[in-house]
């Protein structure tokens, strides 16, 4: 490759390596970076530093959306707020009533588990984080939340919304964290059927309204409308939270596995606030499925 012969500032002598040489060097550098990043994850530090450096840009993009939220909040009129308030109070009342029942059930569950000699599930502590309005790669389901290591987040923590599991944290820097949604094609969630404890894996499809269960045989006991909850196996997600609801089952006799689709319980493409589960010292106990209980 010849160096730049003509240029706008017309230097008499070209300085430094030629253009082609520079490209070659940069390409080599990129190659080394990518291998280090992909294979060994050696670049955590560099990644964090860069992530902090780009945080202002993310903040800048998020700002108008925050402002719009704030505006619509402060400009909504009195009657709308009153109606809202009334509705929320009713909801709170109902939720409290359900909670009372839940605490009784939890106590009963703990007693039963005590009889079975398996320890009770430790209550999970949660932290509310807000999703920042930034689009990542359109082909991957990643989100950025506005809490980071400063708030005690670490990689691998689970994200929930009011309806179910949303995803898990993949990278943290001091001010923000990135998370992968359960609908990302590279994400698999260990689940079990709430009805009978059948364990399997729910894999993302790249569509926020669809998960697939590729590893269930044709004769598996599964029906439309079955609720899938996290099984807690793998140690990433706390056990017992809703993940998805089965929407379609096709049993093709020529295939050994059924084609099963499920719709995520969480509103993956609409949530604005998520709960980050901060678990205590304990690792979730593998739940005892009804079949196993029955055999004991």
């Amino acid at each position, binding site marked *: 490759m010849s160096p730049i012969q003509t240029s706008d*500032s017309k230097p008499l002598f070209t300085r430094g390596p030629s253009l082609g040489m520079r*490209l070659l060097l940069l390409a080599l550098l990129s190659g080394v970076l990518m291998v280090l990043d992909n294979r060994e994850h050696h670049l955590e530090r560099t990644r964090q530093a*860069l992530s902090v450096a780009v945080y202002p840009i993310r903040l800048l*993009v998020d700002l108008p959306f925050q402002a719009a939220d704030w505006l619509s909040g402060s400009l909504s009129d009195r009657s709308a707020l009153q109606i809202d308030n009334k509705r929320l109070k009713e909801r709170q009342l109902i939720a409290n009533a359900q909670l009372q029942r839940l605490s009784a059930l939890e106590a009963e569950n703990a007693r039963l588990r005590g009889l079975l000699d398996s320890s009770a599930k430790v209550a999970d502590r949660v932290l509310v984080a807000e999703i920042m309005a930034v689009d990542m790669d359109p082909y991957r389901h990643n989100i950025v939340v506005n809490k980071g290591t400063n708030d005690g987040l670490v990689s691998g923590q689970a994200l929930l919304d009011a309806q179910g599991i949303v995803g898990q944290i993949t990278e943290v820097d001091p001010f923000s964290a990135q998370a992968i949604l359960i609908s990302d094609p*590279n994400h698999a969630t260990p689940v079990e059927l709430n009805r009978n404890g059948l364990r399997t894996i729910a894999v993302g499809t790249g569509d926020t309204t669809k998960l697939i269960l590729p590893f269930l045989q044709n004769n598996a006991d599964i029906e439309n409308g079955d609720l899938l909850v996290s099984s807690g196996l793998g140690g990433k997600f706390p056990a017992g939270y809703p993940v998805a609801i089965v929407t379609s089952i096709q049993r093709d006799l020529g295939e050994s596995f059924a084609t099963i689709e499920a719709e995520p319980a969480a509103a993956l493409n609409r949530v604005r606030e998520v709960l980050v589960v901060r678990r205590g010292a304990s690792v979730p106990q593998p739940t005892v499925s009804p079949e196993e209980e029955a055999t004991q």
Partner: protein
Amino acid sequence: MTSRESEPVLGLFVFSIIVAFSLAIVPMPEWLGRFRPDWVALVIIYWLMVRPRQVGIGAAWLVGLILDALKSALLGQHALAMAVVGFLAIRFRLRTRVFPVWQQMLSVSLMIAMYQFILYWIDGVSGQEIPLTDRLATVAASALVWPFISLILSTLRR
């Protein structure tokens, strides 16, 4: 490259890059997201065509690296693609600059296609599968916004 005339350019360069970064991650509806032009690559192409000595291919690489961090892609992926695009932009700038608009759009779309191909290739090697047809939508969208980018930046430079 420290020439006198780099002073006013630097501010505008940084500003345009920040705007491009913002446009690259601003939320869009899912169906429209597929047609999001490669804003950063387009701005880099523009600057390398008009100021090849001051901006340079190294700056293009660095901008690509920051884009990697911003999109949380594999570190080095966009950097490599951006360096290659920068190389093409510098090599063919004399010809491209005097082209009529539609020919400029054509050559820019070829550069963006190269950019997208490198991203696609690296995604493939690192185990992410993304349909190539979706990438073509980006190339077309980028070519369509090129005249506006070049017009706006040229006006701002005066």
